[in-house]
């Protein structure tokens, strides 16, 4: 009996480790039922993040052989800092949806960037600024912050924090544009790409 339990925990551990290494870079699903599995998740997240930071070191450091041990130690330290500040969450990345999100981001950036540029250059200064309240579906926490940061990069919309409820107060240069619909489309895509749905 006890042996079976042991095996199950081991299996959960292994599965969590595999998941962490293979499919879900950066953030991974935590399983609250087993403490050791949670530990494995943590270890897995640490390993994935350390690998990411080491890759970053290689990128900025280039091909300096002597620096590799230093880079490795730094990557471990950075992933320790990262885990302290941001414990492994329940997000998981879906590469295809992420690609779609990136494509939409690029297209929207250029389109609305051109639009803001046109408004700036137009002698009549055609602005219709104001706030709209957009009810957020994504739960409070890291995912919501990430989405707010994402939407604040798109020209035309500027999240200014939430009101008393869960509505995001967005400042727009032109309130007559379909801002809410755009935001809803982006939020769906964002939630799918990062596994918040």
């Amino acid at each position: 009996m006890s042996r079976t339990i042991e095996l199950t925990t081991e299996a959960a551990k292994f599965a969590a480790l595999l998941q962490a290494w293979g499919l879900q870079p950066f953030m991974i699903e935590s399983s609250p039922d087993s403490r050791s599995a949670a530990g494995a998740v943590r270890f897995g997240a640490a390993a994935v993040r350390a690998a990411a930071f080491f890759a970053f070191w290689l990128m900025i450091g280039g091909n300096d052989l002597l620096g590799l041990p230093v880079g490795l130690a730094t990557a471990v330290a950075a992933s320790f800092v990262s885990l302290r500040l941001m414990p492994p969450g329940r997000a998981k990345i879906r590469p295809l949806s992420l690609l779609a999100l990136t494509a939409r981001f690029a297209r929207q950036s250029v389109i609305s960037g051109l639009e803001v540029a046109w408004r700036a250059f137009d002698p009549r200064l055609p602005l219709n600024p104001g706030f709209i309240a957009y009810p957020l579906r994504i739960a409070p926490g890291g995912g919501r912050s990430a989405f707010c940061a994402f939407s604040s990069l798109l020209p035309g919309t500027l999240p200014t924090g939430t009101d008393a409820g869960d509505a995001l107060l967005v400042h727009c240069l032109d309130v007559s544009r379909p801002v809410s619909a755009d935001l809803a489309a982006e939020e769906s895509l964002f939630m799918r790409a990062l596994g918040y749905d």
Partner: protein
Amino acid sequence: MSGALDLFSIAAISVGGFFFLAGTVGLLRFPDPLCRLHALTKVDNLGLGFIVLGLIARSDGVFGALKLVAIWALVQLAGATSAQLIARAIRRKEQIGAKSAGGSPAA
């Protein structure tokens, strides 16, 4: 370097310069701080994106290109955060002003 690549690089950097110019014009012409924030943080970031794109074409090797992308990403992150913080501060200030004037806060 091939001519086509140079041409692409020149074009992308020029487009980036255009967006920076538009952002600056917006910064000077838009009527209130929140609108000016739009011009400053977003259109400028778009300009930076195009300039980075143009420079990637001229970068030496993959590492140089990735470094440029990392710079762009960090500037985006900083821009997103500061835009939200400033916008938040302005809205709260306006709300307090509206409340003390007896009006309802903008929503």
